[in-house]
């Protein structure tokens, strides 16, 4: 239970960081910072709240989320071969 609250605290802090980072001028990096924080936060939720970390039933559990991300990135990437080079 303590771990849940710790995770929650980190999530809140990360949100604070994201909001204040958005106030600053990071130039081209601001999106990267914002998304990086979002990934961190979802990693915390996935691993602790959703217990992905301790799912031992199937080896596949470990690959599912990275797999889906890879697919989505490929979809976006291939689409960009069109829109960015038109």
């Amino acid at each position, binding site marked *: 239970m303590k771990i849940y609250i710790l995770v929650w605290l980190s999530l809140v802090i990360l949100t604070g960081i994201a909001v204040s980072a958005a106030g600053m001028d990071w130039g081209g990096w601001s999106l990267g910072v914002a998304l990086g924080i979002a990934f961190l936060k979802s990693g915390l939720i996935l691993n602790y709240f959703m217990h992905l970390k301790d799912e031992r039933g199937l080896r596949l559990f470990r690959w599912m989320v990275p797999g889906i991300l890879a*697919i989505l990135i*490929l979809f976006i990437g291939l689409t960009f*071969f*069109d829109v960015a*080079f038109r």
Partner: protein
Amino acid sequence: MAGFYEDERRLRGILGWIFSTDHKRIGLLYLFAILFFYAIGVLLGFLMRLELMAPGPTIMRPQTYNAIFTLHGVIMIFLFVIPGIPSIFGNFFLPIQIGARDVAFPRINLLSWWIYMTGAFLAILSLFTGGGPVDTGWTFYVPYSLRTSVNVPLAVFAVFILGFSSILTGINFVTTTHQLRAPGMTWFRLPLFVWAVYATAWIQVLVTPVIGITLLLTLMERLVGVGIFDPAKGGDPLLYQHLFWIYSHPAVYIMILPAMGVISEIIPVFARRTIFGYKAMAFSILAIAVVGSFVWGHHMFVSGQSDLASIIFSLLTFLVAVPSGVKVFNWVSTLYKGSIEVAPPLLFALTFIFLFSIGGLTGLFQGALATDVHLHDTYWVVGHFHYVIFGGTGFALFGALHYWFPKMFGRMYHKKIPYFAWALLFVGFNTLYFPMLILGWKGMPRRYYDYLPQFHSLQWISTIGSWILIAGLILLFANLIYSLFRGEKAEGNPWGGATLEWQIPSPPPRENFAEIPRIERGPYEFRK
């Protein structure tokens, strides 16, 4: 033990069917629903052929024709081939072949049949409400689908619902394959049909939502005009095409992979020897599923997408041909030094190889950039996909019906008639579709109600072909329907198959296995 037909639990009669969670009953529910829609789709195809028999108006007006080819495409794709083999035979045989008593989520399985029927009902309803039958083509391309006055919203929503059913079926099959394999049923002892349905199920789970959201947005575009796809509001119509094909190209592998699985079951049984290159077959299924998900842009070579994208998609498209080739070569090699009996299922399987190869090879012409510029949206494409879908999935379905019929219904059909039906189908099929390839090469665009006089003779031949095909289909189904009631009783293993479904009585008892079997050998070990 009594067959699952006699089983009456809470509910009797028809209710015992439509509320049954037994995977075999659900498989049969799908069988009848799907064949019903197939008959409608086929009838529409027949009407189109009549219209195209001669230039100028023949039996209908342009708007009717446009609605008919749209409906034909929607029914055939979303109601017939996509659910086809997985929902019928996957439901019936996947659990049995892995030694399970049912799928992982029987109630969700029933739910997905109901969702399927709801989607089908809405699709039919869309014909008679709103502005009338949709006339957009099965691709619903924007901005036409945003501008036309017909009932696009309901039709699109119906397809969205059907997608839901597909996702649920996919989730069920993936989980079943992972969780419910009998002891000793290792991954490399799975029958190839299971591999194929398993890979298909992943595609269903992962890409169907993409078309879901695409159609949802199209719906919103129609209802409130959000502007995301509407060029008049700054949207990019090509993005619609990207999203549509991100689903719809992998969908063609949803159609063909289970069919390939069926062929991989039939050939070893009738050649009495194990399949050639089992692992290569399993991995090629996965390769097709994975690579096939990233080639969608080959439908957009002349759409205005960037040249770079076209080049990359063309390259990826060609790579999918390689695992398909591996499968074809392995099937042919399985015949080598076998002990072959050309029973009806094998006849359909061999025809599948021939017709699918033609279809696949014509796909290569479309995958090549220079030629696709000419061939895109012509009858060449129509020829291509009827060869792969009807010649491929369709013939595999006929093969599967003849292969598993005794198991599913406990009766054997008349064994001579399928040969006559086959001959008619084969001749009719090629007379119907081969001219389309020539027409396409000569420049006849698709979705044309009327055409220039130089295309007349080929169109006419093609129509004659559809009549021969009719005769074959009617004969084939008449035989099966007759045998359903009058056929002689079938034994448990009429073909001498080695997979699990043949080791239990025909028809299978309600829970399939009295005792969950323990698996000690591969699926195609005919010599004890």
